[in-house]
């Protein structure tokens, strides 16, 4: 059997597991409620009078994902190790990377589904005005890529520990770094501390998801931003495989 088939089988099982437990439904409901609340109540979407979703809807996603994505990713490997199914999975005739990619894709698709279910917002803004749907589409792509980057980081933390709680906390902190590195107050602080080393400040801010998500919100599909998110995902999944291998050899 080929790798594609193996990845598909792993991903299918993982997705099925999401929907047989209440996790999936709780997650989707909370995600949608948060989106609705922040878009319409906090950002005052109706009062702003703009046929755009950037300043009211997508701007919150880096912060929602900070808590919600680690909640989805924390069980990926921690639970396999705790229950012992890791032994089952890794003695099946598949390569470990196929399992890692399969599990990641399942969770990423699930996050994509939750994101797609926010479609009433798009419908609302189209009903009220005439927004640039190309910009909205680009921002959706960016949001999904950003969720993937968070998720891949959660994969690493989930592989480190048996405890889902520990995994959740570490990945929230790691994702917080990914946000704060591009958060204006933090950039100012860094510039004050290291004003002679602008390259260092630039390097740190270039790791921020916010900087890379901004382009998507303006409707720009910049290859550098896409490559940034994909390389965070690629690197994190590679790190996950190294950690899983280390557990077995030590």
């Amino acid at each position, binding site marked *: 059997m080929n790798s594609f088939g193996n990845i598909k089988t792993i991903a299918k*099982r993982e997705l099925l597991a999401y929907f047989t437990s209440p996790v999936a439904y709780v997650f989707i409901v909370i995600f949608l409620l948060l989106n609705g609340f922040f878009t319409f109540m906090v950002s005052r979407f109706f009062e702003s009078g703009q046929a755009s979703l950037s300043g009211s809807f997508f701007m919150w996603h880096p912060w929602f994902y900070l808590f919600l994505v680690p909640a989805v990713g924390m069980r990926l490997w921690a639970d396999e190790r705790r229950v012992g*199914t890791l032994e089952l999975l890794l*003695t*099946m*005739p598949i390569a470990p990377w196929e399992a890692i990619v399969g599990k990641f894709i399942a969770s990423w698709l699930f996050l994509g589904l939750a994101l797609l279910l926010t479609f009433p917002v798009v419908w609302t803004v189209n009903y009220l005005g005439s927004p640039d749907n190309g910009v909205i589409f680009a921002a959706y792509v960016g949001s999904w890529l950003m969720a993937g980057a968070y998720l891949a980081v959660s994969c690493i933390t989930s592989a480190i520990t048996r405890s889902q709680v520990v995994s959740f906390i570490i990945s929230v902190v790691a994702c917080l770094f990914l946000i704060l590195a591009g958060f204006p107050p933090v950039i100012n602080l860094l510039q004050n501390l290291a004003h002679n080393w602008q390259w260092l400040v630039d390097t740190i801010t270039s790791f921020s998801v916010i900087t890379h998500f901004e382009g998507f919100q303006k409707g720009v599909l910049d290859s550098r931003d896409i490559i940034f998110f994909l390389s965070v995902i690629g690197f994190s999944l590679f790190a996950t495989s190294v950690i899983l291998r280390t557990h*077995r050899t030590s």
Partner: protein
Amino acid sequence: MIKVENLTKIFGAKRAVDGVSFAVERGEVLGFLGPNGAGKSTTMRMLTGFLPPSGGTVTVGGYDVAEHPIPAKKLIGYLPESAPCYTDMTVHGFLSFAAEIRGLRGDAKKAAINRVVELCFLETVLHQNVDTLSKGYRHRTCFAQSIIHDPDILVLDEPTDGLDPNQKNEIRQLIRKMGEKKAIIFSTHILEEVDAACTRAIIIDRGVIVANGTPEALRRKSEWAGAVTLRILGLSASAVQEKLSQLRVAKKVTAEANGNQVVATVFPRTAGDGDLTREVIAATNGWQIVELRTEEGRLDEVFYNITMPDTRN
């Protein structure tokens, strides 16, 4: 089918498995015995490719597990210790996943699931969520996944753990029956299982193989092998003891009063000595003997003698 050579696993400063070598052919059921922590599970984890060995090689069906893990793993069915299952799915969903990952599709998958469901008596719980199952059912579900692709090689880590006596019996019979066509290796610390299912047994202690042979050969190492036990009416224990102790082939005699009977055991000087029974019968001519039997030897005693001296220090 399975060839293990000089297999070693070191955890930190501890040599969990230390230079273990053995082979299992098709048609053999190898019982893997040993006290807890002897290295049974670690050896099995290396056999199935879960843990990489620190030294030595495992060859399965001609493939080196470390170098060609995927073709080797295709040949193996594995039941890990504590029989883990994905709890967030139904039994059918779990078996269907196991079948698909083994490359079974469509009708072949359906047939495979039906076969293992029948073999492992899972019909009644087929559409139940795994986390609602009792331990016995969960165990059998995991056992079912290990045989779903009808593998040539089965590695079972304590396959009867947590089952009730009837289920234990069923699983043992199943193992023995499957062992006619496959190479099976299973670990246990229940010695009756060696008799019930194995063609050969290995005793491992502190990572080292301390005995390797058929159950009969192992039993012959016991001082009970070939011993004769009698129950006699109308004599005192001391009289019985005195008379039987005169036998040349007897190494040791025990005699104890039990109600109005005396229970005596004569141990042979050389284990498994067939002459002893004849000699005892000749010597006790005229006694009122209620029962006389020749002992086959006791595995538990062999096991104790082999593994205890080590655990004491």
